């Protein structure tokens, strides 16, 4: 590599690294650090509680399981949606494409209220399910629906560009060798999409975990059943137990970071194939 002859677009490694680290510090690291300091402010009792109180543990379970489920649901349907939007041309395609971002644009509380009204036993959709004896609002199913709604754009928007870039010759090569459509999708297309799906999954999972506004309305917030961890943080804050809320937040942070880090590792492994 020629180090000095090539003109760089962004001046100087020193300046850019300095900018990067100070930006990341101010926006991400310092608030996180502050959270850690805060949680141990009044000794370790807050922590002990955050790791032992059965109600809080149940809150983690609800949050992590529902987020996982929502991200999983979106991986399947988001993939199909992205596929349809990139592979087919039909009237209204641009409109649907534009609608994908709507969950981002809507204030989350508005989304929560609308979803609750729709899925409660008296609502349009909820009443149909209630007739079959299935309750959606105020159960975990409701939480998953709210989280799915809020995280759909992540999956679609990460897969879409990859699908658009994907060379049609891969599929044609599969066809020429006599592979069925199913095999072509599983063996040829899916491996190409996996890194993007994983990224989308990670983003959706993290977003769902932290989602508060849209979920609290539809969740019903029954302790041990539909109480999510972010709500517990809010209620601890309202009781002025800052250390406890910070401790819960820190536990969630560590778990989320581990998940994201794991996904990143898998992805960089996959990226090494795609260089040629």
């Amino acid at each position, binding site marked *: 590599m020629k180090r000095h002859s090539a003109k760089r677009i962004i001046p100087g490694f020193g300046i850019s690294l300095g900018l990067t680290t100070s930006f990341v510090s101010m926006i991400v690291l310092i608030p996180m650090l502050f959270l850690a300091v805060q949680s141990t402010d009044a000794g370790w009792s807050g922590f002990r509680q955050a790791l032992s109180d059965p109600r809080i543990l149940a809150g983690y379970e609800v949050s992590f399981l529902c987020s996982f489920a929502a991200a999983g649901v979106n991986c399947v349907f988001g993939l199909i949606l992205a596929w349809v939007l990139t592979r087919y041309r039909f009237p209204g395609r641009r409109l649907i494409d534009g609608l994908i971002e709507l969950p981002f644009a809507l204030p989350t509380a508005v989304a929560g209220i609308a979803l609750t009204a729709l899925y409660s036993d008296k609502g349009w959709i909820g009443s149909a399910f209630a007739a079959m004896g299935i309750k959606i609002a105020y159960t975990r199913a409701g939480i998953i629906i709210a989280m799915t709604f809020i995280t759909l754009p992540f999956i679609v928007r990460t897969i879409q560009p990859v699908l658009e870039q994907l*060379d049609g*010759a*891969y599929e*044609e*090569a*599969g*066809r*020429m*060798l*006599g*592979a*069925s459509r199913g*095999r072509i999708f599983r*063996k*040829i297309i899916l*491996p*190409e999409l996996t890194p993007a799906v994983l990224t989308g999954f990670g983003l959706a999972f993290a977003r769902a975990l932290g989602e508060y506004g849209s979920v609290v309305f539809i969740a019903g917030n029954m302790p041990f059943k539909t109480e999510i961890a972010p709500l517990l943080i809010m209620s601890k804050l309202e009781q002025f137990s800052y250390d406890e809320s910070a401790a819960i937040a820190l536990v969630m942070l560590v778990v989320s970071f581990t998940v994201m880090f794991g996904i990143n590792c898998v992805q960089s492994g*996959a990226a*090494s*194939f*795609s*260089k*040629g």
Partner: protein
Amino acid sequence: MYVELQNINKAFGDVHAARNVGFGIVRGVLAALLGPSGSGKTTILRMIAGLERPDSGDIFIDGARVNDVDPGRRGIGFVFQNYALFRYMTVFDNIAFGLIVQKEPAETVRSRVFELLALIGMEGMEKRYPAQLSGGQKQRVAFARALAPNPKLLLLDEPFAAIDAKVRKELRVWLRDMIHRLDVTGIFVTHDQEDAVETADEIIVTNNGRIEQKGSPQMLYKAPATPFVTSFIGNSAPLENYKRLKGFENGSGAATGVVRPEFVKIYPAVDGITYENSVEDAVVEDTAFRGTHWEVTLKIKNMTLPARYSLEKAPIAAGDRVKAFVYRLYAFDGDNVTLLENRNLDTHNGANRYSI
């Protein structure tokens, strides 16, 4: 005919990729579809493969009409322009793909893959991924993958386009040998006449969705059928009025044509030319060194003619006045091409027998 196309038409909107295309290729022959970009050659190849459907016309392979046969069931191996090797599979899995699809037993797959690896000279590389291979190696893996299910017909889309000049020469020879050794019929698409002339047994020249001419490289060169083929194959320069040149005064029809550099002989003015009436006065406009000879641009009676000039002769430079003799040229008359010999050829040759 092993492969035969009859009256094939194909349009993409307003663009006619194929107009009444018809040709046949004999078993065991390596044929090239040669034409400028946008001439429809790739579309023709893709229609044979079944990746594109003709609007009308019939395609026969080994006597059977295959228009409605699935691409994977036509017994064709296809090598894509950028090889389209599956990036997440090893070389082994890439080559094995077509065999596994056919549910061949694992032991057969293994032995066939290693047989092909030996054939392409890449033993020991079966565990590599495509990203770890050079351009030439990728091409050979793509070739092996296409050949694995034992196709009788191999189609290649611009097989040499992405390969640098040196490896390209080797690959041409290699491809030609392989096709003949394996007794398959091959058709490849190229826009590069050198690829076609050096590799193919037979060339099909396409232009504007039409087949201009089909024949051996020598035939295309010696007896081009249309003005397009005349200008496209070999080096040539257009002449707007060849009747002004000595020895061609009474050609028939229109006076346009082309001349090739090897048809023009330069005599440095100092040489004694015994039959002066046959030669033209020429001014050297430009000279370019081509390694084995000079490529010279001459101005004769306001027309620009190309010529070759031996490195062994007295050097000439731009601005020099020289003599030139035009042996022959191609005259165009509508869509017809005639080879015109210089009327003074015999006298000229006789008179200058002893000159250099």
